[in-house]
């Protein structure tokens, strides 16, 4: 029995695909190391609340230090009153440093730097600061992009502090109770999204591009000129890819669990079922996409045509609810959105079989429809 299996063409096709995969270091990097690094980078950036430094441009040196005999400006009065340290910076400009400690929200160091308008604009364009302060006739003027939430926050904090310096000592007038409900952190939102994006990328490049490349190298033509069963070729390719996706997702989850203490709150068997149907959906799309062309350049374009809109719109890194409300029903119909929503519901909302049964059926149908349509137009030679 074992001999029969190990001599079968399906077994050898699976072996060939596994060998091809594990012997390519780039595949291991992009499939395993890259998502882990991405989760680490984004997780640290958005989850760990550290002390932050906020730089603000003050147009005009006279607003930071006044000449003998002149009265202090509003900004300077504010800084001096709060014992801000005003000292020359490395580039020769003056910088007033004001530290605001907060145990719950994390401390903030505000640096009020004297810059001329041109320097301020350069720093703004480079993302070094998002707020410019000026003083006209004893009145503080704030200049910032009103559509930038970070700039809005800086403006609100500074303007409030300048009106009520007491806030610096006791920044929160009302009590803040930090929420520690599992699944509410950014990393809890991010990791399921990264896992789903990995499935899409892996199927598109690992199945679609692989088929197109084999066709362009005439290897596909060579293989079908033997008694090889066409179905065995596709089954082996898809099986190995799905197995690899499970490994990649498992490793990313393991890492996230160890570093960020991420847990699966819903049913693990339901997650396995839904993840499998998601893989089938993308494998089907990948076969359809690669069904005809033998040019890798066209394949590249087709894959990006599918990947890019979903990567941007499907709410992998940030919620798709930030998009205009009219577009949300359409976004929710993307396979990646459905997969990410379903996986997130199991990971962070505690969903089980009941909740994912219909989405699983939809994913499976997407996979089968695309797979069968792809096979109908599939160019083997």
């Amino acid at each position, binding site marked *: 029995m074992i001999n029969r299996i190990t*001599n*079968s*063409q399906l*077994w*050898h*096709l699976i*072996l*060939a695909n596994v*060998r*091809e995969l594990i*012997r*390519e270091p780039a595949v291991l990097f992009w499939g395993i190391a890259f998502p882990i690094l991405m989760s680490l980078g984004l997780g640290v950036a958005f989850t760990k609340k550290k002390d932050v430094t906020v730089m603000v441009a003050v147009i005009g040196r006279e607003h930071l230090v006044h000449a003998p005999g002149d009265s202090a400006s509003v900004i300077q009065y504010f800084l001096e009153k709060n014992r801000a340290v005003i000292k020359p910076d490395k580039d020769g400009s003056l910088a007033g440093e004001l530290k605001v400690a907060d145990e719950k929200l994390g401390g903030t160091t505000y640096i009020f730097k004297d810059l001329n308008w041109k320097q301020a604009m350069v720093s703004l364009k480079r993302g070094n600061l998002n707020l410019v302060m000026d003083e006209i006739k004893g009145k503080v003027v704030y200049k910032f992009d009103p559509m930038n939430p970070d700039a809005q926050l800086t403006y609100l904090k500074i303007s409030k502090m300048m009106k009520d310096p007491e806030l610096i000592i006791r920044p929160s007038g009302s009590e803040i109770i930090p929420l520690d409900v599992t699944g509410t952190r950014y990393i809890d939102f991010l990791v399921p999204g990264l896992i789903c994006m990995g499935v899409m990328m892996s199927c598109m490049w690992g199945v679609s591009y692989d088929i197109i490349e084999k066709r362009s*190298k*005439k*290897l596909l*033509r*060579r*293989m079908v*000129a*033997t*008694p*090889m069963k066409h179905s065995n070729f596709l089954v082996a390719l898809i099986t190995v890819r799905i197995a690899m996706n499970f490994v990649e997702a498992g490793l990313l989850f393991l890492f996230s669990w160890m570093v960020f203490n991420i847990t699966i709150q819903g049913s693990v068997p339901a997650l396995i079922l839904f993840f499998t149907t998601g893989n089938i959906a993308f494998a089907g799309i990948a076969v359809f996409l690669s069904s005809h062309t033998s040019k890798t350049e066209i394949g590249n374009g087709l894959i990006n045509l599918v990947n890019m809109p979903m990567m941007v719109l499907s709410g992998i890194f940030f919620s798709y609810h930030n998009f205009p409300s009219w577009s949300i029903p359409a976004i929710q119909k993307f396979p990646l959105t459905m997969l990410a929503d379903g996986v997130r519901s199991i990971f962070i909302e505690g969903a089980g079989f009941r909740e994912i049964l219909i989405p699983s059926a939809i994913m499976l149908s997407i996979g089968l429809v695309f797979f069968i349509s792809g096979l109908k137009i599939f160019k083997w*030679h």
Partner: protein
Amino acid sequence: MNQEAVIKVINVQKSFKAVHAVRGMSLEILNGQFIALLGPNGAGKTTMVEMIEGIQKPDSGEILIMGKHWKGNEKELRRIIGLSLQETRFIDKLRVCETLRLFGSFFSLGPQRCSEVMELVGLEEKKDAYVVNLSGGQRQKLALGVALLNKPRILLLDEPTTGLDPQARREVWMILKKLKDESSTSLILTTHYMEEAEQLCDYIVIMDHGTILKEGTLQDLLGKSSADIEKKDEYTGPPRNLDELFIELTGRHLNE
């Protein structure tokens, strides 16, 4: 030699949009016979071989392999045909032995046959080398080895030595000569090298623009042509080789 025809090509035509690749060709290949389709690039050699391989379908005419059409007999015919396509690239990160085992599994062949083939094509020393690290000649030997795995009744080789250096080309010829001596395999080989056709094949078909210009044994071709030429042209001497014959027939060199 058994005089049974293993391949019959009857008045076959094939066009790609406005290009007439093959224009009404007929051929008969006997059991154990080695045939060369000789002609310059664009002569229609590859299209003809791909139709015999079952990869392309003729627009009209008929192709019979062992008396059978491709339609309805594909599974059976694939088992008795070995082929090497022009410029096939195998999986880069598979070893030579793994590539042979993979293709061997398509014919339900075990490791023993793969070892025999490696020895036959002289790749034993390279059995653990990745395909990507093989030289052009070694890759061509591997392609030939894959084609020979199933001990084919019919072997179809599309320009098996194009791009190889003279030494590597001679090594491929040696393998094919050994095959001719030791088996009853019939071979169709496309080439634009006249020495290859002269060295390996007992029947030569000279093609250009999708038609057969002349066919026969080497002696027939060179002998007959001089008489033909004497009648038509002012040329008096017989052609000394196939290239000269081709120039006389078309006004061009084979490699143009």
